[in-house]
């Protein structure tokens, strides 16, 4: 087995990995290599053929492949190496990475810094336990997206979508445009988890019905899916007997959540935050293992590729500048308080952040209006940020300016809480 020495080794050539690689090179890292298991770089963007990417980062509207193309070309210009068709088997805490590939065989890489940028995976039928048979025609929305947009196979003709996340909404429109009959999008919650723009452009534009507080209780069919039983649910998500309805379809697309893909991270001993499903990171996106960084959907499931890019640049800079022996410095914890699902980063070194703005990502647990987000220490409000509204489907970003950051006391943990008015009292 051949061994290669690198400055920065990045796992995953999606927007996170490419963004981190470009920044690492710009910050002076000499040898930067991105490993990718697919046959080309770009990650999931290659199958996200719809527009809406880049509005925040490039101030223009791009499709997924166009957004990916910019980073693929920029990475090449910046001298970032990309090795495709390569599967990472193991990441060791010593920053040794073992890979397997048809072309290169087994390889061993030793890197000064490793960046985890593996992205996330879709939850499947098994994760939500739908009763019934096991016919063909039940697949995740992302799988259907790959078949339709890259490989050129239409997964079915009559489609039901379960889950109103962005991929579900986008695939409802995509199937409709390809001539399928889309029976409707079913959502367990009383609100959608997708972006407002997707509800408008994907469903309303094509008169595709959205059924809130309804789910799929059972699937029917022996060899091929023949239909599903849709059922209404109460506020707690419990099915209401007597409300069952048979909906004929040959395809059920599941858009029921994403899970950061952290098998490699866990095996390496990276500490995982149960709330995000991703590594606990500091403001530079370093994990609990010195020299191992993480960014993008592996850390938290982002709504926008633009945010993945922002986060990956943070990680790329830190990975390039990482010096060993500095990791014992004092750290403050950042906790998600009432009303918030999580906050990223989960740790910060306040002294180190002096003079730099701090970007916090957080996710609301419930939709709220006239919101105040407060940053607290020792039970006292230190900083407050008013927002007109928050939704669980749309990530909240708060930037604390350097002057405001001075308000926070080094050595004391930080709690972030949210207060606001509910839509239904």
């Amino acid at each position, binding site marked *: 087995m051949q061994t290669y020495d690198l400055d920065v080794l990045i796992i995953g050539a999606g927007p996170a990995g490419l963004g981190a690689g470009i920044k690492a090179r710009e910050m002076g890292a000499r040898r930067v290599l991105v490993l990718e298991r697919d*046959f*080309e770089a770009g990650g999931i963007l*290659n199958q996200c*053929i*719809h*527009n*809406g990417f880049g*509005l*925040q980062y490039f101030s223009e*509207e791009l*499709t*997924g*492949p*166009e957004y*990916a*193309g910019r980073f693929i070309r920029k990475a090449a210009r910046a001298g970032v190496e990309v090795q495709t068709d390569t599967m990472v088997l193991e990441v060791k805490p010593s920053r040794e990475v073992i890979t397997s590939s048809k072309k290169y065989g087994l390889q061993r890489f030793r890197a000064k810094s490793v960046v985890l940028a593996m992205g996330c995976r879709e939850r499947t039928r098994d994760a939500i336990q739908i009763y019934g048979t096991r016919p063909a025609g039940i697949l995740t929305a992302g799988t259907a997206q790959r078949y*339709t*947009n*890259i*490989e*050129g*196979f239409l997964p079915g003709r009559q489609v039901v979508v379960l889950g109103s996340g962005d991929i579900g909404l986008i695939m409802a429109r995509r199937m*409709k*445009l*390809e*001539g399928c009959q889309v029976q409707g999008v079913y959502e367990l919650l009383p609100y959608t988890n997708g*972006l*407002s*723009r997707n*509800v*408008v*452009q994907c469903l309303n*534009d094509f008169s595709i019905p959205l059924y809130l507080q309804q789910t799929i209780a059972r699937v029917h069919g022996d060899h091929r899916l023949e239909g599903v039983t849709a059922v209404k649910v109460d506020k707690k998500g419990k099915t209401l007997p007597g409300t069952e309805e048979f909906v004929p379809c040959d395809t059920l697309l599941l858009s029921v959540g994403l899970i950061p893909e952290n098998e490699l991270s866990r095996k390496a001993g990276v500490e995982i935050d149960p709330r995000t499903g991703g590594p606990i990171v500091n403001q530079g996106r370093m994990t609990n293992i010195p020299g191992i960084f993480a960014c993008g959907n592996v850390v938290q499931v982002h*709504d*926008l590729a633009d945010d993945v890019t922002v986060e990956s640049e943070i990680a790329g800079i830190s990975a390039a500048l990482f010096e060993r022996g500095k990791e014992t410095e004092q750290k403050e914890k950042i906790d998600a308080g009432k009303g918030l699902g999580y906050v990223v980063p989960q740790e910060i070194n306040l002294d180190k952040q002096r003079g730099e703005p701090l970007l916090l990502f957080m996710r609301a647990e419930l939709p709220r209006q006239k919101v105040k987000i407060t940053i607290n220490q020792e039970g006292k409000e230190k900083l407050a940020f008013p927002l007109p509204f928050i939704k669980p489907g*749309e990530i909240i970003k708060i930037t604390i300016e350097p002057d405001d950051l001075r308000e926070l006391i080094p050595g004391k943990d930080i709690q972030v809480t949210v207060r606001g008015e509910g839509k239904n009292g």
Partner: protein
Amino acid sequence: MAEKKLICVICPVGCEIMATIENGELKKIKGYRCEQGRDYAREEFTSPSRILTATVRIKSNRVGQLPVRSTEPLPREKLEEAMFSLARVKLEPPIKEGQLILKDILKTGVDIVATRDLEK
């Protein structure tokens, strides 16, 4: 006089924009946070249009489909008809991002272009 409401789709913020329409004419709009939002709302209340993104067949041993887009928004009611024009396209690589795939689709003056490079 009629009040109409829409959610702005220019960016993910999703502003709620209200319009007052009198005798089919746009009198007043409010709730937008940027100029693009205002322009979008004006158009959306009068003649809605959308960028069309889709795929066309391509003969390649790596992929079966090539992603494409319209260079400008198409009238919303023409999107499904435009898909029939795209269904007749069949290409071979190499393809360059931005390459013209179909000129003046449905005589709208809008072109369809490739959204990625594809080598042989």
